C-alpha cells in the first residue's frame, strides 16, 4: 500500500511538472490507434454490408449453377430441377439495367441491378428477401412490374404505383413499381422482377444466368453436384454461394490491406514517441530513481513501476484513440462511402459501430505498444547502479552499450529475400514483411552510420557548431531514439510519395496512349441491357464532322469459378496487328499462325491466369470454348481483375451479336465537338445513359478519380510524419534538458546565450540531416519494394519507377527546419534558469 503511494507520488510529481509533454505522447499514441481503428471500421462496415447483401441475394442455396456473363440456355433448368436429391431449383436472371431517375429536373441515368426470379421457387431459398412480399408475390406476375429496394426507389425518385423508364438496346421501356422491399430486407440498390417479365422486357428469352439449388434433406450436396456437372455446357460451373461475396471482397482486398498497413505504421510511430517520452522522463528523474534504489527498492519493482507508468499512458491514449477512431470512421464513411475513395464500393447505409471486442482489441494493442516502448528505458534505468544514477551527467550511459548494427544487417538481408517471394493468396504479404524488415534494419543501423558520418565530419570553424558536432559524436545512442521516429515515418513517406508519383506518371502515360481519339462514347455504363444496334451505329458514324468511327462491344467472361469475370473488348482489328490504343508491354516473339485468332491480354491476365505472350488460351464465347493465341500483353489501369482485346469481326461471327456499347470517334479538322455531341444525342435517344466525353474530359476525370483515391493515403502519411516530427521535438527536448548543467558551464565560461542556442539548433539540424539522409536512402529502397512487389502483387499491373524530386526536396527542407526549430525552442526552455543554479545542480 505504502509502495503504491510512493509510486503514485513519483508519477504524479512528474505528470504535474510536465503535463504538456505527457499529453503529446498520449495524443500521438491516440492518433495512431484512432487511425487504425477508423480504417478498420470503414473496411469492416463496407465488407459486412457487401456480405449481407450478397447473402440475401443467394439466400439459403446449397450451391449455385452459374453461367458466363450472357447466361446459358434455360433447358438446363428443368434438367437440374429433376435431378434426384434436388429439393429446390430456383432459376435466376441477373441484370444491370440502365434506368432513368425521375427525381432530378434533368433526368439522370443510373445502373440498377435487377434480380429476376420465379418468386414461387425463390421464396423457399430467399425468405429474407421475399418474406415481406408473401402476400404480394403474385403481383410480380405483372408483365411490366418491378419491386424496388427502398434505396433504389429513393435513387430513382419513385414510389409504389409510379413508373420509370429503362433502356433496352437504345429503346425505352416503362416499368411499373409494384411495391417496395423493406429497408431491412435489402440495404442496397435492387430491383426484383418476375423471370418471365424480365426475359421478355429485356429480350433475354430462353436465357438464365444462374440456378440456385437446395439439396433435399438427407441427400449429399457433393453427390448432387457431381451428378449435375456432366449436364453443364462450356462456361457454366457450380459454385458455393459464399464464393460470390468472397469474390466481391477480394476485388478490394488489396486496397484495404494497404490502408490497414498505413494505419499500423501510425500506431508504431506513436509507440516510438512513447519510447522517446519515457526515456526523457526517466532520464530527468534518474536521481530520484537512484535514491529509491538506494533506499532498498528492488530492481524488479522499479522496472515494474516504470513499465506500469508507460502502460497507463498506453491505456489512456488507446482508449481516446478508439473513441476518436469510431467518430472518424463514421465521418469517413459518410464522406467517401465505404471505399475510402477507391470507387469500388458505393454508399453504405448503416451507421457503423465498433463491436466491444474490436474496441477492446485496439485498446489492448495500443497499450501493448506503449508497454513495450516503456520497457526498454525502464529496464536500463533499473539496471543502473544507484550510486552512478545519483551522480549527475550520466545521461549518455543510456543505451550506450547497445551495438545493434549486426541485427540491422541481418534484417536488411531478410527484407531483400522476402521482397523476392511471390504473393500469398493474392496478397503481397511477403512484400509487407520485406518493408517491415527493411525498416527495422534501417533503424538499427542508424547509430552506427551516424557515428561514422560524424567521425568523418571536418571540425567546423565556429565554436557553437564545433561543439554541436562534438556533442553529437558523444551522444549518438541517445540521439538515435529521436532519429528512429524520424526515419520510420519519413522513409515511409518517401516510399509512398515515390510510389504514388510513379503510379501517376505511368497512369498519365497510359491515358495518353489509350485515349488518342477525340470523342469517347459509352452507352449505359456497366449496364448489360443497353446496346447500340447497327442502325444506331450507322447514324453515329454518318454524323457531320465525324471523320472516323470505331465501335466496340464489351462483355464479361468467367474464366475460373469464383473469380471476378474478365472484361472482354471486341474491337475492330487489322489481322495480326496489335490494336492501336493499347499500352503494349510485351509481344509474342513469333508471327501469328493463321488458324488461331490473336488476342491481347492485360498484365492481370498474366498474373491471374498465367497467360504469356505466344501461348494458346481458350475463352468461352457464346457457350463455346474458342482458342486464341496471346499476341501481346498490355497495361490496363482501368481493370485490375483482367481484360482482353479480341477481334470484333470474330466475335460477331461467333455470336451474331452486331451491337456495340462503346465507340471512339476522330473528328474532322475544324469540326466542333459540342455540335457533334449534340448530333449524337439526337441520333441515339438514350438521354443521360449515352455518355459522350471528349478525350480531355476523360483524362481530367480519370486523374481527378486517381487523386481522390490517393487523398486518404496522403492524409494517413501526413499524420505519420506529424507523429515523427513530434518524436524529433521530444527527443531534442530530452537532450536539451539533460544537458542543463552543460549549458550552465558553457554560459559560465563565456558562451553567449545566442551561441548556445545556435549550437542546439545546429545539433538538431545535424541530427535530422543524418536521419533524413538515412530515411531517403531507406525510403528509396522501400519504394522499389512498394512499386515492384506490393503494387504488382496487389493490383496486378506494372508501374515505371519515377521519383518526385521537387516534392522530396520540399519535404527534406521542411523536416530539417522543423527539427532545428524544435531543438532551438527546447534549448530556450532549458536555458531559462540561471547559470549558477544549473552548474550547482550538476554537482
Amino acid at each position, binding site marked *: 500500500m505504502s509502495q503504491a503511494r510512493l509510486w503514485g507520488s513519483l508519477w504524479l510529481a512528474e505528470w504535474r511538472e510536465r503535463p504538456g509533454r505527457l499529453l503529446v505522447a498520449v495524443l500521438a499514441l491516440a492518433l495512431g490507434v484512432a487511425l487504425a481503428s477508423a480504417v478498420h471500421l470503414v473496411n469492416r462496415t463496407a465488407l459486412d454490408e457487401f456480405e449481407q447483401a450478397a447473402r440475401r441475394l443467394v439466400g439459403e442455396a446449397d450451391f449455385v449453377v452459374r453461367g458466363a456473363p450472357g447466361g446459358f440456355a434455360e433447358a438446363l433448368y428443368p434438367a437440374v430441377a*429433376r435431378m*434426384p436429391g*434436388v429439393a429446390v431449383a430456383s432459376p435466376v436472371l441477373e441484370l444491370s439495367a440502365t434506368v432513368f431517375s425521375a427525381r432530378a429536373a434533368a433526368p439522370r441515368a443510373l445502373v440498377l441491378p435487377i434480380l429476376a426470379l420465379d418468386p414461387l421457387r425463390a421464396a423457399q431459398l430467399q425468405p429474407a428477401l421475399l418474406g415481406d412480399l408473401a402476400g404480394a408475390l403474385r403481383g410480380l406476375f405483372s408483365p411490366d412490374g418491378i419491386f424496388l429496394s427502398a434505396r433504389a426507389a429513393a435513387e430513382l425518385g419513385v414510389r409504389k404505383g409510379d413508373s420509370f423508364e429503362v433502356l433496352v438496346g437504345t429503346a425505352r421501356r416503362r416499368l411499373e413499381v409494384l411495391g417496395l422491399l423493406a429497408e431491412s430486407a435489402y440495404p442496397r440498390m435492387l430491383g426484383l422482377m418476375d423471370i*418471365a*417479365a424480365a426475359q421478355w422486357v429485356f429480350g433475354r428469352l430462353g436465357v438464365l444466368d444462374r440456378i440456385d439449388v437446395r439439396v433435399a434433406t438427407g*441427400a449429399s450436396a457433393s453427390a448432387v453436384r457431381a451428378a449435375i456437372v456432366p449436364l453443364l455446357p462450356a462456361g457454366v460451373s457450380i459454385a458455393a454461394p459464399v464464393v460470390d461475396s468472397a469474390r466481391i471482397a477480394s476485388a478490394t482486398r488489396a486496397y484495404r490491406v494497404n490502408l490497414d498497413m498505413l494505419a499500423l505504421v501510425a500506431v508504431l510511430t506513436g509507440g516510438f514517441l512513447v519510447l522517446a517520452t519515457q526515456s526523457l522522463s526517466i532520464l530527468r528523474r534518474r536521481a530520484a530513481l537512484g535514491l529509491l534504489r538506494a533506499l532498498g527498492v528492488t530492481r524488479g519493482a522499479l522496472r515494474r513501476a516504470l513499465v506500469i507508468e508507460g502502460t497507463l499512458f498506453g491505456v489512456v491514449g488507446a482508449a481516446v484513440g478508439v473513441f476518436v477512431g469510431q467518430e472518424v470512421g463514421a465521418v469517413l464513411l459518410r464522406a467517401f462511402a465505404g471505399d475510402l475513395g477507391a470507387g469500388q464500393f458505393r454508399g453504405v447505409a448503416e451507421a457503423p459501430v465498433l463491436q466491444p471486442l474490436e474496441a477492446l482489441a485496439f485498446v489492448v494493442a495500443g497499450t501493448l505498444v506503449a508497454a513495450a516502448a516503456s520497457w526498454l528505458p525502464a529496464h536500463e534505468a533499473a539496471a543502473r547502479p544507484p550510486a552512478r544514477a545519483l551522480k549527475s551527467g550520466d545521461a549518455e550511459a543510456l543505451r550506450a552499450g547497445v551495438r545493434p548494427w549486426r541485427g540491422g544487417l541481418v534484417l536488411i538481408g531478410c527484407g531483400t529475400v522476402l521482397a523476392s517471394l511471390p504473393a500469398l493468396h493474392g496478397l503481397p504479404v511477403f512484400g509487407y514483411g520485406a518493408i517491415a524488415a527493411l525498416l527495422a534494419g534501417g533503424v538499427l543501423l542508424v547509430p552506427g552510420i551516424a557515428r561514422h558520418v560524424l567521425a568523418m565530419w571536418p571540425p567546423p570553424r565556429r565554436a557553437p557548431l564545433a561543439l554541436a558536432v562534438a556533442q553529437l559524436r558523444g551522444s549518438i545512442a541517445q540521439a538515435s531514439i529521436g532519429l528512429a521516429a524520424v526515419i520510420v515515418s519519413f522513409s515511409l513517406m518517401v516510399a509512398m510519395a515515390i510510389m504514388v508519383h510513379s503510379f501517376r506518371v505511368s497512369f498519365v502515360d497510359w491515358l495518353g496512349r489509350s485515349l488518342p481519339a477525340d470523342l469517347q462514347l459509352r452507352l449505359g455504363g456497366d449496364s448489360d441491357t443497353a446496346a447500340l444496334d447497327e442502325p444506331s451505329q450507322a447514324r453515329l458514324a454518318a454524323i457531320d464532322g465525324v471523320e472516323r468511327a470505331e465501335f466496340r462491344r464489351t462483355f464479361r467472361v468467367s474464366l475460373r469459378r469464383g473469380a471476378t469475370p474478365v472484361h472482354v473488348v471486341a474491337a475492330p482489328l487489322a489481322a495480326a496487328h496489335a490494336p492501336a490504343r493499347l499500352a503494349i508491354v510485351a509481344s509474342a516473339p513469333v508471327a501469328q499462325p493463321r488458324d488461331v485468332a490473336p488476342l491481347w491480354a492485360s498484365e492481370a491476365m498474366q498474373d491471374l491466369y498465367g497467360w504469356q505472350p505466344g501461348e494458346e488460351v481458350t475463352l468461352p464465347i457464346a457457350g463455346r470454348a474458342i482458342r486464341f493465341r496471346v499476341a501481346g500483353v498490355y497495361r490496363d489501369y482501368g481493370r485490375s481483375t483482367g481484360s482482353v482485346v479480341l477481334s470484333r469481326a470474330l466475335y460477331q461471327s461467333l455470336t451474331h451479336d452486331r451491337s456495340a456499347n462503346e465507340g471512339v470517334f476522330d473528328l474532322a479538322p475544324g469540326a466542333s465537338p459540342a455540335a457533334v455531341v449534340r448530333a449524337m444525342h439526337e441520333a441515339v435517344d438514350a438521354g443521360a445513359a449515352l455518355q459522350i466525353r471528349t478525350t480531355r474530359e476523360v483524362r481530367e476525370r480519370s486523374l481527378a478519380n486517381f487523386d481522390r483515391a490517393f487523398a486518404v493515403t496522403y492524409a494517413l502519411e501526413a499524420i505519420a510524419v506529424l507523429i515523427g516530427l513530434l518524436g524529433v521535438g521530444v527527443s531534442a527536448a530530452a537532450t536539451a534538458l539533460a544537458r542543463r548543467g552543460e549549458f550552465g558551464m558553457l554560459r559560465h565560461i563565456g558562451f553567449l546565450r545566442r551561441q548556445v542556442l545556435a549550437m542546439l539548433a545546429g545539433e538538431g539540424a545535424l541530427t535530422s540531416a543524418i536521419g533524413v539522409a538515412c530515411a531517403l536512402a531507406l525510403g528509396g529502397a522501400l519504394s522499389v519494394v512498394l512499386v515492384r512487389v506490393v503494387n504488382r502483387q496487389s493490383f496486378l499491373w506494372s508501374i515505371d519507377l519515377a521519383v518526385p524530386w521537387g516534392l522530396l526536396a520540399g519535404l527534406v527542407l521542411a523536416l530539417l527546419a522543423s527539427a532545428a526549430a524544435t531543438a532551438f525552442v527546447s534549448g530556450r526552455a532549458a536555458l531559462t534558469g540561471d547559470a549558477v543554479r544549473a552548474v550547482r545542480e550538476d554537482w
Partner: protein
Amino acid sequence: MKRRPKAWTIALLLAAAGAAAGPPPPVVPGYVLAFPRDRGSHPAFLTEWWYATGWLRTPAGEDLGFQITFFRSRQPEADANPSAFAPRQIVIAHAALADPAFGRLRHDQRIAREGFGLAGAQTDDTRVWIDDWRLERDAAGYALQASSESFSLRLALVPTQAPMLNGEAGYSRKGAAPLAASYYYSEPQLRVRGEIGRDGRRDAVTGEAWLDHEWSSEPLEPGAVGWDWVGLNIAGGGALMAFRIRDGRGGVRHAGGTLRTPAGTTRALAPTEIVFTPLRHWRSPRTGIDYPVEWRLQAGTFDARLEPLMDDQESDSRATTGAIYWEGAVRARAAGRVIARGYLELTGYGEPLSLR
C-alpha cells in the same frame, strides 16, 4: 425422393401451351360433360380444382382422414408473354393427414407456375402435378402422391361406380345469377389402397375416398363470404354432396346438392331441401376463429348428425391460396349408428374467402 422425367410431361407441356389464349369462356347449362376429356384440365377457365378426400384405416385399426387438392389458376395477363416462364397457369396443391393421435393436421402445400414439365395439368385426362406431388388417372383408377417433412401419401383410388354429375348434368349453380356457376362432377365411393408415412414411420392403409373436379371462371358473388360443403360416402353404396354459400350476416345465399341412393339413382337437391344446423363450435387456438364443427344436416331424405374425426382440422394455406379454413374428416350418425363417412369443408369463417 423420386423424380423420373417422363415422356408424357413433355407431350402435355406442348399440348397445354397456347391452349388458353383469349377471354375465359362462360359456364352455361346444356354443356355435355364427356369423359375422359373433361377429367383433364380446362386451361381457358380461370379456376379449376381436383379434390380428393377420404377415410383410411391402418393395420393397427387407427382411423385417419386424408385430403389432397390440386388447384389450377389461370393468369390471363401473362398470355402475351412469349417466355417459357410466363405464368399462364399457377398450380397449387394442399395435402393434409388427420390423425387423432397427433391431435391436429399434418399438412403441407406446394405452388409453382406451369412449365418445363415441372408443374402442370394435362388436358386429356386427370393428370396434375407439382414436382413429385401428383394426381393422375389411368385405366385402373387414380394414383395420388404427396410427401413432405412430416408425412407422405401414396394412394391408389379405384372407382366402384360412375361419376356423379352435380347440379343440372354437371352445371352447378352457385348463386342466383345464371353465370354464377361451375362445371362440377364427383367420384364417390372410391376404394383406397396404399401407404402413408408419418414422421418416418410407414403404414399400409385401406379405406374409401371421394374425388371432386370443378372448374369455372366466376368468383364468388359479391356479398358471399364463404361456403360449407360436405361429401359423404353413405354405407351401402350411396353418396351425398351438399353445400351452401353464406353471406356476411350468417344468412344463406344459395345451396345445392346431389343425393345418390345405394341403388344408383341420382337426384339433384333443390336449395330448399338442404339445411345445415350448427350444433357445436370449436375455437382454433392458433387463429382464434370459431368453426361450427358439429352439425345436423338435412338433405332430401338424408338427416344425420355430422361429427368430426377430431376437432382441430384447421388448414392454414396463407402462403399459397391465402385462405385459412377448416377441412376435416366427419362421420354422419343417425339413431346412434354411423351411416356415412366423408369430408366437411368450412370456409370464410375468418376472413371472407377469395377464389383468385
